[in-house]
């Protein structure tokens, strides 16, 4: 009898073979190792810094910068602080990132759809574009646009003129500057009202369709509201805008707004390069919607256009959006290559401040935190969006 009881009792697991014990021991050893490495790094860094007579603190950010920045979205002068300089750099990063995202998305969608075109030539051209552009390093493309295309342009006197109002030369692209007069605020207000009205209309249209089945062209109505209302307001206010046209005075242009060649080169390279990746994402997204979906939609009596709008695109977007967001993130991170052509972005400004103040550790920490925050923010948004459009499975 006792033998039977002994067998039924679970065998004592040896202390060394208990998975829980092993797992905990491994984690403790790992954590100790990490702590040791961390301590070593901290210890060495502080010892090395002490030897150089430095310490880590961020008070230097208040010191006067003393250098000029060629593109200033906010008030900045030589007397401003390092912090302001870095902030200017950050805003310039945002500017290039936003412009780049817009241009790359448009170009990428066009190329992606072209690759699926029934026109053989268009499809091959798009394929050629993708294969050529994405296999050439981005930095090379930036340097090419800057050094080989924009810098050799003629000087202000021989500028390339666009209808006599905009000029392209080696100092940048000079365009007329709009000066808003009284009542221009109404246009902005009208635009906001138009946006709200468009959202309201589309909600009403959807509710009505769900109730009655009647459809309403909310897209065109919305577009009309968003564009039409500001135009009406603009005309009613008496067209309160005048343009300051650039004029050649002496050796340079006076008036107008100058878009820096650095910005143009960076924007061109970033959007052309990223568009080649976006095109592939778009193509893959559309291909991922199985043909049966379109056939089913046709069988239900939907025409080509509603099939595309109601069946194919929503499903394709589900595939497209996550990799698209990571491309946007890549574009933002790649905009740091601006430092190679001295466009004053976050990394370039940080570099200048680092050279002047010798505060390497602090600047690297600032870079890391800003970029990490940007990417965490984007991925949080992406997770939220993914959760929203996720396929509801039973």
């Amino acid at each position, binding site marked *: 009898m006792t033998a039977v009881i002994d067998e039924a009792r679970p065998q004592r697991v040896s202390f060394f073979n208990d998975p829980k014990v092993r797992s905990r021991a*491994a984690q403790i050893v*790992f954590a100790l190792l990490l702590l040791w490495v961390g301590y070593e790094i901290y210890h060495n860094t502080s010892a090395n810094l002490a030897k150089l007579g430095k310490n880590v603190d961020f008070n230097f950010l208040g010191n006067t910068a003393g250098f000029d920045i060629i593109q200033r979205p906010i008030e900045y002068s030589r007397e401003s602080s390092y912090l302001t300089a870095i902030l200017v750099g950050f805003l310039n990063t945002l500017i290039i990132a936003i412009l780049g995202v817009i241009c790359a998305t448009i170009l990428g969608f066009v190329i992606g759809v072209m690759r699926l075109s029934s*026109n053989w030539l268009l499809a091959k051209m798009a394929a050629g574009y993708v294969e050529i552009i994405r*296999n*050439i390093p981005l930095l090379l493309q930036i*340097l*090419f646009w800057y*050094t080989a295309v924009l810098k*050799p342009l003629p000087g202000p006197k021989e500028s390339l003129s666009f209808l006599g109002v905009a000029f392209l030369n080696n100092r940048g692209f000079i365009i007329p500057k709009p000066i808003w007069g009284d009542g221009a605020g109404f246009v902005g207000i009208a635009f906001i009202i138009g946006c709200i009205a468009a959202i309201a209309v589309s909600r009403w249209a959807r509710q009505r369709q769900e109730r009655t089945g009647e459809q309403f062209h909310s897209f065109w109505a919305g577009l009309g509201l968003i564009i039409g209302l500001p135009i009406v307001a603009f005309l009613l206010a008496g067209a309160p805008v005048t343009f300051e046209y650039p004029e050649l005075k002496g050796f340079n242009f006076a008036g107008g707004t100058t878009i820096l060649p650095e910005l143009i080169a960076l924007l061109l390279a970033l959007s052309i390069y990223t568009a080649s990746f976006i095109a592939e994402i778009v193509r893959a997204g559309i291909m991922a919607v199985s043909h049966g979906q379109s056939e089913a939609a046709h069988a239900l009596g939907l025409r080509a256009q509603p099939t595309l709008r109601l069946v194919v695109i929503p499903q394709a977007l589900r595939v497209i959006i996550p990799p698209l967001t990571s491309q946007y993130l890549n574009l933002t991170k790649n905009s740091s290559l601006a430092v190679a052509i001295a466009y004053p972005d976050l990394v370039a400004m940080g570099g200048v401040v680092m050279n002047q103040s010798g505060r390497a550790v602090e600047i690297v920490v600032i870079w890391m935190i800003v*970029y990490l925050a940007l990417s965490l923010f984007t991925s949080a948004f992406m997770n939220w969006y993914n959760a929203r459009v996720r396929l509801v499975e039973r």
Partner: protein
Amino acid sequence: MTDLSSSHAWVRTKDAERLPPPPNTTGVVGWLLQNLFNTPLNSVFTIIGVAFIAWIGWGIIEWAIIRGVFSGESRDACVAVPDSGACWPYVAAKFHQFVYGFYPFDQRWRVNICFIVGAIALATMAIPSLPYKKWNALFLLVVYPLMTFVLLTGGNLDFSTSTLLGIVGLLLLSALIVPLLAFGIEEGVQRNRTALLLAGAALLIWLVTLFISMPEINLLGSFVSVSTLAVVALLLAAAIMSLVHEASSRDVSARSALLGWVGACCAVIAVLLVMTVDFGLVAVETQQWGGLLVTMVVAITGIVASLPLGILLALGRRSKMPVVRLFSVVFIEVWRGVPLITVLFMSSIMLPLFLPEGVNFDKLLRALVGTALFSAAYMAETVRGGLQAIPKGQYEAAQALGLSYWRTMSLIVLPQALKIVIPGIVNSFISLFKDTTLVLIIGLFDLLGIVKASFADPKWAAPQTASTGFFVAALMFWVFCFGMSRYSIYMERRLATGHKRRGI
């Protein structure tokens, strides 16, 4: 009975002659009509497309060939022609620099050997039908890096006596683990108690010396503290005891573990020997490296170093241990969240601060550390994709067979997962290859860096130098990247084992 032939005027007895298909559906014309001019809109697009291609194509041909300058000794040849195109003599004069950088002229055969051997080993590795993949991989991952290291730098490293003693100590310490691996922890500890106690004593002495300094004696021309000698001696005794124990055992697993240990020791000693022996090669500082050579060194080291790191990180991210998982997630997300350029700045500026005083890295090595860590994070995500694609049944089956975690991973899961992600690995290699250009920002001369630097040479500074240089650099990068991407597509097709739907 009626006669059929009389009631019908005529009955066909043979097939009618086949008509040719409508002329506008076959041949060149039919193809054009179907693919290029099937709708009015498409016709417009086609015409615009043809015009665009003609414009670009003619532009390039005109610039490169018709207006191009093909001979000359200096910039004068390219400046003399008004409105000249590409300046080819500049490329001819600088091409060696594009490939080797400032590597001494009479030593360039060393670089050539590395390029050729690497190309052959990679090609035999990449062609699936060739045999001896395992040995080839071993060559590429162990022998080849060592060979290139010795050839490119000249080898002949000087290890300090304490470093050598440290390595010997680690090897001896590893001898103690052999019985634990062979018999499992419990039995291993029981069998080998004395040796472990000796090792414990050695560790204790080492800990004590961290706080109390010991007298030093002269050994083979360099000073070593008494305590270090004591530690090594104790470890030696412990290792011999455990090895003797092992060797006297008739157990098969003990024998194989012993053999494995001896093999590993021999390999480490061989590596040390190769690195320290003077082969009579002139030492070439890394400052003199440049061009394609640096691009290759950074890209290949990055990928070789990032693969094992990436695998470990990917496993860590899927681990059930919270500490390990948290570390992996943070590590991966931090590196993936920041641009490579800040990583390079960090490794070139901050790495020296992290290291103990007196330890110095050269610039290239610092850049290598940065790129390796950066690409390890991306590699980890690629490998994780492969791990997630392995069905749970594989893990469960391995567990049911009683395999340990590491055996499950190394024998069952990773071979399948890595096979799936070969295209992904090739793609990360392509992006790493392109990203190597960033090292020019921290002052290294990779292919793009050296091309850019050559614009400043007054002998060749001409209006068309920059375009020509960029054109050549772009072409070189493109050939490599395009080749690799084709290979990745080829492997993807080859590895797709029929579960995927083809076409729409």
